[in-house]
């Protein structure tokens, strides 16, 4: 028995010596990235796998969560389980006030290659990706403004060739197509997910109507009235349900209704997610109230990455951000049709023939980024919800507008009086060139 024990001890000691002689395997630093984009999942996963194979010091772990993104991040920070990098779909001011995000300006200034590819120092949008001198994220690309996607076969069957320039004609077109469809096909369809934003709000924008009066520094929803009235007419002839975005996309792809509104992400949706093969589909600018373009159509700089303050390996996280916004990564991303380039550097390097239907969403000459409207502590429904409720007949239109004007401005005034925010005024504001004016921040 003693012999056996001695033998066992000897074997264990020998094993210990051998193991201690083996050089310790270098552990990778895991950088966790939370995204709320699902449309580019395949490309992102492939590129992340490529990175992970090529690097023995850093590993990227991507997690996609499309619901309740900002709340989930704040909860994760509180719970000590925060990721290292997050996608930019958050309210910047909240994240900054929470001391949750890192100013990337020092990293950017020290990296000329990054500046060259992303044009980071010139793509600063106050309140959107930057506050003062601090830069919290840099856009990789941009999403176009909303377009009308339409079923050419259904339009032709009702005697139409394309999308008209005025809202009134657009309404009449939807009515006729619904009548011609005789309960089987419909002129137009709306989703339950932010329906106002996807068509009517953008028609108002190009008509020069915006919910923030930049010249006077206050909220003003009065201009939306004709669009809400037109909305009531459209809803009356629309496909009877307003289901989730993907359900409605699937029905559009099946030819259930003719008119759908959404931005450039639909290029990928209707070629990959719900490929349309049974009919031809077109892409057209949204109509305006009287056919004249009086305001810019909003484009959204996007696909930016924020580094969280909770990140323990900030240099490694910066390496990951650099990779996500490297020339190799972005050229493939744009050619894959996931986004539109925002810098001339990338624009000149992509093969546009590979972009597929994304080319149909090339920016119009009246598309522009709007100055970020101050984030206010609002009580009650946001304007998109309330205006849609008015369209659906659940509120009177005038009462809805008056209530929004009151609530938004009261909250704005209070936040300013408490010193949380300042009043944004652009005295020389031009609705066709919203970013061109001189921004002034007032204390009252």
């Amino acid at each position, binding site marked *: 028995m003693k012999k056996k024990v001695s033998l066992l001890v000897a074997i264990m000691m020998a094993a210990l010596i051998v193991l201690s002689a083996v050089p310790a395997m270098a552990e990778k630093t895991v950088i966790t990235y939370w995204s709320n984009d699902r449309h580019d999942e395949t490309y992102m996963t492939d590129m992340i796998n490529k990175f992970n194979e090529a690097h023995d010091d850093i590993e990227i772990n991507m997690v996609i969560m499309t619901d*309740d993104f900002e*709340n989930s991040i*704040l909860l994760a920070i509180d719970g000590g389980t925060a990721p290292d990098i997050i996608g930019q779909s958050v309210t910047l001011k*909240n994240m900054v*006030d*929470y001391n949750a995000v890192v100013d990337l300006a020092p990293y950017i200034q020290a990296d000329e290659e990054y500046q060259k590819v992303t044009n980071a120092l010139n793509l600063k949008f106050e309140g959107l990706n930057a506050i003062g001198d601090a830069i919290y994220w840099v856009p990789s690309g941009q999403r176009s403004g909303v377009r009308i996607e339409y079923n050419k076969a259904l339009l032709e069957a009702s005697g139409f060739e394309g999308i008209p320039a005025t809202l009134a004609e657009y309404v009449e077109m939807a009515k006729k197509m619904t009548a011609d469809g005789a*309960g089987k096909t419909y002129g137009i369809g709306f989703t*339950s997910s*932010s329906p106002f*934003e996807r068509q009517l709000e953008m028609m108002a924008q190009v008509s020069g109507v915006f919910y923030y009066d930049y010249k006077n520094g206050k909220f003003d929803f009065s201009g939306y009235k004709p669009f809400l009235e037109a909305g009531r007419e459209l809803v009356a002839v629309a*496909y*009877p*349900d*307003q*289901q989730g975005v993907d359900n409605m996309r699937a*029905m559009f792809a099946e030819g*259930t209704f003719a008119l759908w509104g959404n931005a450039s992400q639909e290029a990928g949706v209707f070629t990959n997610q719900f490929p349309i093969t049974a009919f031809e589909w077109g892409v057209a600018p949204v109509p305006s109230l009287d056919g004249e373009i009086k305001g810019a159509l909003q484009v959204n700089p996007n696909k930016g990455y924020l580094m969280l303050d909770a990140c323990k390996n900030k240099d490694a996280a910066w390496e990951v951000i650099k990779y996500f916004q490297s020339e190799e990564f972005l050229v493939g991303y744009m050619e894959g049709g996931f986004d539109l380039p925002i810098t001339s550097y990338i624009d000149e390097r992509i093969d546009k023939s590979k972009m597929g239907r994304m080319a149909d969403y090339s920016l119009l000459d009246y598309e522009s980024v709007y100055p970020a*409207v101050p*984030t*206010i*502590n*609002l*009580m*009650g*429904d*946001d*304007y*998109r*919800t309330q205006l849609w*409720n008015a369209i*659906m*007949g*659940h*509120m009177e239109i005038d009462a809805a507008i008056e209530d929004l004007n009151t609530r*938004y401005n009261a909250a704005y005034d209070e936040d300013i009086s*408490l010193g*949380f925010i300042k009043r944004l005024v652009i005295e020389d504001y031009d609705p066709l060139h919203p970013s061109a004016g001189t921004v002034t921040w007032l204390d009252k």
Partner: protein
Amino acid sequence: MSNYVNPQLAPTTRPPRPVDKKMRLKESGGVAAWMMLAPSLIFLAVCSIYPFAWIFRYVLYNYDGIPAHTRFTGMRNITTMFADAKFWNSVGTTFEYALWKLVFIIPLALIMAVLLNQKLRGSSFFRGVFFMPTVIASSISGMIFTFIFATGNGILNGIFQNLGLISQPIGWLTDTGVVMAAVIIMSVWAGFGNYMLYFVTGMTSISEDVYEASRIDGANGIQTFFRVTLPMLAPVLKVVLMLAITGAFKDYEAIMVLTNGGPGTRTNVMFLYIYNLIFGTGANATRQIGYGALLSLMAAVIVGAVTIIYNLVAKKLDDVV
């Protein structure tokens, strides 16, 4: 005869020992009891009392989850609450929803329990089938019924149209006139299996002798149900009713998935309104955790008041019966 006296039995003149509190606690099993209670008490303190106190803390604050934005607003949340038509409308909607749900779910659960208690072939199978919705997550129930109630491509409208019962599809989720019915159908489907099991369990505890006696007395099935089964199920029925009432008042998850409180605010029940306030929705809208905390307390008061009223009524009925 022995002179030996057992000292333990001999009368003693020694004064009684002073009572040792620690000893008495130990001897009475108090230490063990407290130790066994400790996990539950700690759990209660951490998971119920602390969050409740936390809610109280923010009732007088405007708080959106970001400490830098927190500010004391005094009575403003309270005055806002009394003037908040949308909240009081949601309270009314909750009462309406709870009433309709109870009207259907309790009789249905009872009838199914009686039928399945007949020891017919396949009873166990159907018991499992009816109970199954209870184990499905509320959000999944909501999603399932979204497909069932869809207007254009919904399963229910498809069946009705194929049977020739309707010529035009019903807007189950878009028509304010019928959406509450859709919500009630979903919640009854999801919940009646649970209450049915309570009733089945209650019925199995009723002695067979009682039924035999009623048969000898010539009672028919209906008489047996109303004169024997129902009275003897009264204690279970009371518990089930209380659970059903409190449950109905707290429902919101499946409604959130099915209608998100719409169309308009037609199915916007109390806790759904509070949830949306606390977690925030939409552009520029910020979370209203302070105000939401106040409404949560008010909701707790409302549910508590309803439960107390029910208990009083139930007690009165006991006295009468």
